[in-house]
């Protein structure tokens, strides 16, 4: 008589599925959502786990990164930039800069560990959340010599789940980058 229960292969498949689901659940995902209305309407939605993007970036040839040398003036101001970001992180929450022009309204605010940039222009609306703690961590890890994709992933790794960037253009084009 055949015994009831899970076969070895079934067990392996279930364990694998559980592993994948667990990995999906605990991994930070970025979702890039682009909608274009004219002239060829299309809607692209690309979800990707951040760790895969991070791993993929490690395959970028070193020669290619060497060509992305940053201006030495930037490295010369490393201390200034780190001090500014640290001070911003420690600052109380507040609207820091507001610009009201006839064709645009710009507001930069610090809320929690994030810098929020809101631009309401005649032809577009932009919202951007910059995780200051992530930026600080990424800058501290960076060599300040060549552009490093890890800068992006280190920054995103500290970002809160939710919208990171949204762009609404008056022609109907929408771009959104969300983390979850």
């Amino acid at each position, binding site marked *: 008589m055949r015994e009831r229960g899970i076969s070895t292969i079934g067990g392996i498949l279930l364990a694998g599925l559980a592993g994948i689901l667990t990995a999906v659940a605990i991994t930070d995902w970025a979702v890039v959502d682009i909608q274009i209305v004219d002239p060829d309407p299309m809607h692209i939605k690309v979800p990707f786990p951040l760790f895969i993007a991070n791993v993929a970036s490690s395959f970028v040839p070193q020669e290619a990164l060497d060509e992305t040398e940053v201006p030495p003036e930037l490295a010369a*101001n490393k*201390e*200034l930039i780190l*001090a*500014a970001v*640290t*001070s*911003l992180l*420690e*600052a*109380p929450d*507040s*609207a*820091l*800069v*507001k*610009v*009201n*022009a*006839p064709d645009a309204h710009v507001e930069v605010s610090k809320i929690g560990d994030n810098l929020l940039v809101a631009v309401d222009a005649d032809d577009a609306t932009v919202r951007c959340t910059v995780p200051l703690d992530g930026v600080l961590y990424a800058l501290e890890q960076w060599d300040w010599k060549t552009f490093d994709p890890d800068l992006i992933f280190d920054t995103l790794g500290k970002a809160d789940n939710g919208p990171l960037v949204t762009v609404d253009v008056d022609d109907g084009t929408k771009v959104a980058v969300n983390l979850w």
Partner: protein
Amino acid sequence: MTRKITAIAAAAILFAGFAVATEGTRWINVNVSEHAEGTNVEVHLPLNLVMSVLRSVDVDNFHRGQIDLDIDDTDVDWAEIFAAVKEAPDGQFVTVDSHDAKVNVSKQGGTLFINVDEIDGDNAKVKVTVPVEFMDAMSINESSQIDVAALLESFDRLPSGDLVTVESDDANVRVWIE
């Protein structure tokens, strides 16, 4: 019940701590209203942030909060001048009435007021308030460098109020501390 009271007390203490920290922060505010295009810019920065940035900048004429002044050839005892201004009694110090502008420098309640009314040009009206704490912090060293960082540090001790206001045909500018 006890646990609930403890949680409420902990939350109250946390909130009070945050409120005190926020209250203790001094802010530098700058407002620029440009008339021609109707653009308005408001900047509201914590003093700590400005200080951190100032102390980190080291460029041509600006060295970690010290600005090089082009006054090498003059032999002026700045400390003595600042002390004299600080010690001077309240009153009208300088009045200039010319075709170009009216300038008025006075001291009231220990605070120095500098008013300039431009007659030609943009018809600018400039009002500068120099509190006594500001004069204490004003120093120019032997290398003719003015310590701007020390000046800004003195903002921490200033009462809230306007430091500079400019009203002109082009734009209005207001700098104040709170």
